[in-house]
């Protein structure tokens, strides 16, 4: 029987072959190559040195972090409002809300960029409308700036964040709001002092996912700006598939920087969650 049991390990083989071939080995090679100079030679930190001294890369890191932070903050705020509302209304309204969120969450990349070009591009429908109706903020809207990018990013953050948060809001116990009311607390006091603090770990966790999602987003920004707007994923890709010579070492180092930013973000939020948990006892 035991020999037969080990025979079943063969069934694991296809999975590990695919994972090794298309995930683990290529990703490890990115890490290794980031420490090798593109001109050939042995171990070096020169790729990292380039990233932290060349203005283009500094700016792309700055832009990426800025847009990711802004869009994640706005996204999480709207998602908290949305998930709280969905938790409250239940029934058919919630079902159609969830359906739309699910649908829109699949709607990113090229189609999203195109829709925003139609809406708010230089010849956009809303821009024309703003001109005609005298709404300056619409007429003068600049889609091809970091502000415009943030607006597009916020759009795809909202459904993702709301879908991630709704289950956590639904897990809140009804007894808590009832006890809060019995003790004379108002509705808003319950949310401020009980529900939101209890949900804080989930909110922070979702924030991390949003941040990583925005940091890695590539199709949307590429469709709108090509490679003109320095962002980390754009620079990474252009080091591998650029018209000029490919530079896997530099691209690898940029990839490592990007993954490190995400790792730092997750670590920070974990520390924050731990600190918060000292004050609030969590539900069983």
């Amino acid at each position, binding site marked *: 029987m035991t020999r037969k049991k080990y025979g079943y390990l063969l069934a694991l083989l296809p999975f590990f072959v695919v994972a090794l071939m298309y995930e683990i080995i290529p990703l490890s090679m990115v890490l290794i190559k980031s420490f090798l100079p593109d001109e050939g030679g042995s171990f070096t930190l020169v790729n990292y040195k380039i990233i932290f001294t060349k203005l283009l890369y500094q700016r792309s890191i700055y832009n990426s972090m800025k847009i990711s932070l802004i869009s994640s903050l706005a996204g999480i705020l709207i998602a908290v409002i949305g998930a*709280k509302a969905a938790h409250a209304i239940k029934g058919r309204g919630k079902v159609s809300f969830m359906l739309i969120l699910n649908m829109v969450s699949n709607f990113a990349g090229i189609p999203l960029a*195109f829709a925003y070009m139609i809406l708010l591009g230089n010849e956009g429908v809303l821009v024309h409308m703003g001109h005609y109706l005298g709404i300056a903020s619409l007429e003068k809207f600049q889609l091809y700036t970091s502000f415009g990018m943030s607006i597009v990013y916020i759009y795809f953050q909202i459904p993702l964040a709301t879908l991630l948060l709704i289950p956590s809001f639904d897990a809140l116990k009804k007894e808590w709001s009832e006890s809060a009311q019995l003790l004379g607390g108002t509705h808003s006091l319950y949310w401020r002092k009980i529900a939101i603090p209890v949900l804080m770990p989930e909110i922070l966790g979702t924030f991390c996912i949003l941040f990583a999602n925005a940091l890695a987003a590539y199709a949307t920004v590429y469709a709108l700006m090509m490679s003109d707007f320095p962002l980390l994923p754009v620079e990474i890709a252009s080091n591998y598939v650029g018209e000029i010579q490919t530079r896997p070492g530099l691209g690898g180092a940029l*990839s490592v920087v990007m993954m490190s930013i995400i790792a730092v973000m997750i670590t920070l939020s974990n520390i924050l969650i731990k600190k918060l948990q000292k004050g609030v006892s969590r539900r069983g």
Partner: protein
Amino acid sequence: MDKTKKYERIWILIIMIYLLIPLAITMVYSMFQKWTKVLPEKFSLSGYGAVFSDKLFLYAVIRSIVMCIIPIAVTTVIVLLALFVAFVYFPGLKKFIQMICMIPYSIQGVILSVSILSFYVSVNNIFSNRYMMLCGAYCVIILPYMFQGIYNGMNAIEMSTLMESAQMLGAGGMYAFFRVIVPNIATSIFVSALLAMGIIFGDYVLVRNLTGTAFENMQIYLYQIMKTDSVKASAVFVIIMMITFCITAAVFSLKGKERIGHHKKRGRK
């Protein structure tokens, strides 16, 4: 209490409208020739006519479908086999498999595609074929979704009991797995396959980085056309939107049914 509920409804309405505006406006845009004032002018479906009479569009649709089927089939089989062995014989491996399956979720498209590209581009055999690379990349990028669905499905049924009774009745391990377990989690598999389809269908990063524009799927087709003909492109957009909506609606209703099914099972116990 009712008053707060009213406010919550208004919030939901605002968010839904905000999310639907880009879709709705692009849809209307696709059906008119001119929209430079408040209202669109000159109703016409010429954009759709142009799209449907374009052979390149037809090819793009076929390419998109083919590129969905192969990676989803491969990943379904390998994840099923791996999780089956882990659940029944080596529970210790579950965590390990989960870790491998979740890596693509945090890495995402750009890094994964460039890593595969730079690793295989110079090997000069079947693996340096761009479509082969794309296939492999799709298999990996959908791993988190396939894993989660199949894992949840296997968790919901009592695998070891089912396996034991099947084997007591004389079925071999693999036979029992494919004839007893797989049919029981068919809905979960189907839902994850649909989710994966949505991912591959919406992909642009992998296909662009790995094949350039050589493999013109729906997304590349839209990208090429949106620079030259915005009305035709908006028609393509609406078609993509409809397909996405169908996939989502299917996932949504299947998931709902699945949930009801599980509740019933639990109720019977």
